[in-house]
């Protein structure tokens, strides 16, 4: 496919890796905050092409993984209501709530459907006027314009049996939380290319200044990621602070203004709990009061469902880049993609799941 394959040629990726090895002198820790990048890094083995002094750690880059457990419980409660068709991206169905997941609710008779787009849920609402259609609106800034668009389109089409259960999260507050943590060892960030496609990177310039670090906006293909890593290490070695854009085929400094306008028409920022991390101020999006009639929590009265997380699961430490998935004693034994303890093992973009799929058996060089 054009604009995909040409960024995957192994020889070119290796020549960037050689350039990177020749510029890296000190020890650096770089964090990516995007599940798509985590997946690509582990799938293509990009971390194994890095010189030993450069460490890549995986941040809380998967919105499925950070959706708080009580939101899963609320989703299940709504899905179990008679007359509800509960629509969701497929990744959310196996995320464990405090006692079940959406897949189990479906097995027990709830009408839970996987959709590709929130617009599919709007269409299901139009086709089923006697039913209540609820869409699980999760995601980072990348997905917010689609969910905001679906709500506005539903209103324009006079569709009133459509509501959204919102658990949107924002990347920059998470970067602040990671950098403000006393044990943070991160020297630089790769910023998520599709998040920045929507938001632009002016806010990242403030973050780079505040924490005196380089941030490189990166794409998702192996060549994109390695070129971004090279730019990051060059900036670290040269003591340069600021944002570089290495995904300029999609990202502009100002982002996508019409998409951002739609998001701010429908959503406002709110404090949000991140699974495994806890409350991060101003890190989420919630519906504006003008769109309260699209709020599933309000329509179904589930806002008072609260829950606490399991103490066994170490996904919080994984999400903050403090440990690798393989350092968790439950990894691959008590916790597998078939029986996940935490969301990082469920979502295909979760770090634990990526390690389970591609790194369960470690082959040592020379063995």
């Amino acid at each position, binding site marked *: *496919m054009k*604009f995909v394959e040409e960024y995957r040629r192994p020889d070119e990726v290796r020549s960037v890796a050689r350039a990177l090895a020749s510029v890296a002198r000190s020890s650096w820790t770089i964090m990516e905050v995007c599940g798509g990048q985590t997946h690509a890094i582990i799938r293509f083995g990009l971390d194994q092409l890095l010189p030993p002094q450069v460490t890549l750690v995986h941040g809380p880059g998967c919105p499925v993984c950070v959706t708080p457990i009580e939101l899963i419980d609320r989703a299940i409660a709504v899905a179990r209501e008679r007359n509800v068709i509960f629509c969701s991206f497929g990744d959310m169905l196996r995320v464990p709530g405090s006692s079940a997941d959406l897949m189990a609710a479906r097995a027990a008779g709830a009408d839970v459907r996987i959709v*590709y787009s929130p617009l599919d849920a709007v269409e299901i609402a139009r086709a089923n006027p006697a039913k209540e259609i609820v869409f699980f609106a*999760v995601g980072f800034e990348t997905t917010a314009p689609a969910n905001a668009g679906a709500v506005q389109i539903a209103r*324009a089409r006079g569709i009133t049996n459509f509501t959204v259960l919102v658990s949107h999260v924002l990347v920059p507050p998470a970067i602040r939380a990671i950098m403000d943590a006393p044990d943070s060892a991160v020297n630089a960030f790769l910023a998520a290319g*599709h998040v920045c496609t929507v938001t632009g990177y002016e806010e990242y310039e403030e973050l780079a200044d505040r924490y005196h670090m380089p941030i490189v906006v990166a794409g998702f293909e192996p060549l994109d990621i390695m070129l971004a890593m*090279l730019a990051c290490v060059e900036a670290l070695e040269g003591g340069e602070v600021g944002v570089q854009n290495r995904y300029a085929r999609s990202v502009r400094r100002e982002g*996508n203004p*019409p998409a951002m306008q739609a998001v701010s028409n429908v959503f406002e920022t709110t404090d949000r709990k991140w699974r495994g991390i806890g409350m991060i101020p101003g890190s989420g999006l919630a519906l504006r009061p003008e769109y309260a009639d699209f709020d599933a929590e309000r329509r179904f009265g589930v806002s008072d469902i609260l829950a606490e997380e399991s103490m066994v699961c170490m996904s919080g430490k994984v999400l903050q880049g403090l440990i690798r998935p393989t350092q968790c004693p439950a990894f691959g034994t008590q916790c597998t993609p078939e029986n996940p303890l935490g969301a990082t093992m469920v979502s295909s973009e979760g770090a634990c799941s990526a390690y389970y799929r591609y790194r369960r058996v470690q082959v040592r060089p020379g063995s």
Partner: protein
Amino acid sequence: MCLAIPGRVLRIADAPEGQTPSPLSRTGVVDFGGVEKQVNLAYVPEAHVGDYVIVHVGFAISTMDESEANQVFTYLRQIEDAAMESSAGT
């Protein structure tokens, strides 16, 4: 979750078939390497037929800048040339 893939715009309309146009209804058919899908184009007013757009959960979120897409390879040549020069010099 933030997966978005590039595809080529084949057709553009003010709204999906059978729907009344509204501010966010701009829509089109996009070709993803042979698979054609209907995609909302409200957020890429600059996109024309023949352009590549990057699509996430049914919405195009940007129009591909082809000159920037090729710039990556210019940059790559520079890296490779620099590596050749430094190995020739040692």
